[in-house]
């Protein structure tokens, strides 16, 4: 009996040895899951911009191809698995089903779902790259150690706009806020920015979608804006784009529009061409057959960040990758003229914010002159002293 056991043990060892030598020639594998839930096609003001489902997927795919081009020289192989969740089905159940597929998830889900997902037991040891959210709450009181945010928060966007308005001396704002919760959240971010940069919100009005056969944008907007007399610029919070476009050229006084329409703050824009961005735009268009959206940019950066971490650490272990990503060593190329890195205190990707009009890039924030003791990029959004998230401590 004892003899037999010994025999099996030796055979087992031999097998292990063989296995080992087989795998030694193979590439190190890094698998990433792209998890996205289908969205209800929203109402839209015009048919100019087609609705794109699963924004980010094409960006993630392109980044995996880039990672693998590098991987062929470093002996690493990156694999992207798609988990597409139909409308109405459970995101959490899908995540649980695929939890063993990878430690690295790039997700395009709603803010609520993201929070629930991050709190699952199965997610504790994962690293989740949030490719879409703008919520300041998820970067403050609801921040999680296992989540990194790729796109600028509402606060970062509002600060970018405010820096520009301060530079232009458009200090008196007329704020128009839409009816959705997200519109109110962006309005809050604008209030915070106004206070930070010493701007004056001289009037604030709610836009209500009311129905009346006699009303048109042409007649409504002048009336809506008529009773506000002393303002420099109309700042609009309409994240879904249901009415903000009405304001340009139709206000009672001739005033510019800025915010979610008019001049907008975004992580990526088709007018952006500097710092190698034109190559990125061309490559994406060739690949996806459409312009790169900011969610594609977010997912691209997430997968590229994973690639950088894996290449530099020569590891596929989540602990090594995470340590590298949150270290000072990360200098991620984001085609925006400055190296990108993560804010250790809340997992937000530090990045310039583009200020774009429909057909021209107007400015890139942080604007010259907005100083910061560590990096000017931290003049946008919640800086370390103000954060209500303390992951780094």
């Amino acid at each position: 009996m004892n003899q037999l056991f010994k025999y099996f043990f030796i055979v087992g060892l031999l097998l292990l040895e063989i296995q080992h030598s087989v795998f030694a020639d193979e590439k190190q594998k890094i698998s990433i899951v792209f998890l996205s839930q289908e969205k209800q096609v929203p109402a839209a003001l015009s048919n100019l911009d087609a609705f794109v489902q699963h924004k980010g997927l094409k960006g993630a795919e392109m980044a995996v191809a880039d990672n693998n081009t590098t991987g062929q020289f470093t002996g690493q192989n990156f694999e992207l698995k798609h988990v597409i969740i139909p409308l109405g089905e459970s995101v959490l159940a899908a995540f649980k089903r695929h939890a063993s597929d990878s430690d690295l998830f790039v997700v395009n889900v709603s803010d609520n779902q993201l929070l629930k997902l991050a709190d699952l037991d199965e997610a504790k040891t994962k690293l989740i790259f949030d490719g879409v959210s703008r919520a300041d709450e998820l970067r403050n009181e609801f921040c999680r150690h296992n989540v990194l945010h790729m796109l600028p928060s509402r606060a970062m966007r509002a600060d970018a706009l405010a820096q520009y308005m301060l530079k232009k001396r458009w200090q008196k704002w007329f704020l128009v806020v839409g009816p959705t919760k997200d519109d109110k959240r962006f309005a809050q971010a604008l209030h915070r920015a106004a206070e930070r940069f010493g701007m004056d919100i001289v009037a604030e009005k709610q836009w209500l979608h009311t129905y009346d056969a006699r009303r048109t944008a042409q007649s409504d907007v002048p009336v809506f804006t008529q009773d506000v007399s002393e303002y420099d610029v109309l700042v609009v919070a309409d994240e879904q784009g249901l009415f903000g476009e009405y304001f340009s050229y139709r206000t009672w006084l001739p005033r510019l529009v800025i915010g979610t329409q008019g001049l907008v703050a975004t992580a990526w824009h088709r007018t952006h061409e500097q710092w190698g961005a034109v190559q990125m735009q061309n490559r994406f268009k060739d690949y996806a057959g459409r312009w790169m959206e900011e969610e594609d940019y977010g997912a691209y950066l997430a997968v590229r960040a994973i690639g950088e971490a894996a290449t530099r650490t020569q590891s596929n272990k989540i602990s090594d990758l995470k340590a590298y990503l949150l270290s000072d060593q990360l200098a991620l190329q984001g085609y925006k003229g400055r190296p990108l890195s993560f804010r250790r205190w809340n997992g937000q990707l530090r990045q310039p914010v583009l200020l774009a009009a429909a057909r021209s890039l107007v400015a890139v924030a942080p604007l010259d002159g907005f100083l910061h003791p560590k990096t000017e990029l931290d003049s946008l959004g919640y800086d370390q002293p103000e954060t209500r998230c303390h992951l780094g401590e």
Partner: protein
Amino acid sequence: MLKQVAGILGLLLAVNAGADTVYVTLEKDNALAVVDAEAGALIKTVTVGQRPRGILLSKDGTQLYVATSDDDTIKIIDAETLAEIGQLPSGEDPETFAQSPDGAFLYVSNEDDNQVTVIDIKQRKVVARIPVGVEPEAVAVSPNNKWVVSASETTNMVHWIDPVSHQVVANTLVDPRPRGASFSADGKQLWVTSEMAGSLMIIDVASKKIIKKLALSIPTVTDDKIQPVGVVIDAAQRWAYVAMGPANRVAVINAQTLEVEKFLLVGQRVWNLAFSPDQKRLYTTNGVSNDISIIDLDTHKVIKSVAVGRYPWGIVSRP
């Protein structure tokens, strides 16, 4: 009297020795600017093709090669008449390229296709396409013609290509977004800049390992504006110079001690550098301020800036 004549003659000779013509590609003007370097004056500007960027002088000094990126070609320009005399099949969107020491081949980075195109200049034919990393940019050929290196901006590697077999035979991982690469005159070192990390790496050619990394930091400029691009090393290997992009400065580096000695303030967004043929002067292209700076290398002082046109990109000097 005789002394006076000799003096004037000597002066004339000295002037002649230093006289050179500088050619600058203007990315946004689709043009080539011609500058009299001695006088520090723009002589003329000629249309050259869409989005001209990289520029080199042929080894015999009679022709210019100009990458007109949006025409997807490299144009051959007569350096005297400035007339186009031919085109080279560069592949798509050529930007930077390098020439073999014998002047027989051009190696072109094709950023969108992740490859290096090898062109036989005399035949005007592509002889090879070599797959490299994502977004290859800087390319250089070693003085002994043993190595062609291509640096890829997104893969963050220097690929070592054997010019005979056209194979990548080794790779060196470098700091993010490598932009410039130059061999030292003795061929023993390769100097590479990283735009994103703001660093200069000196690679030992024999071992292909980084032997020195310099973080280029300026007290009065935030680190994320330190974005080095072009790098050149003088023939004596006494000094090297690095163009620092939006930091608007050229770093002067002691090529013996490998330490930064000083920074020279030039125009805005300085990218590319070229020596005068006698290496007494250095020229810089300043993309945002639309000028070139002329640096005197005996004193290490910027002596003049010359407005040339919109988005000066590449620069080369001819005796």
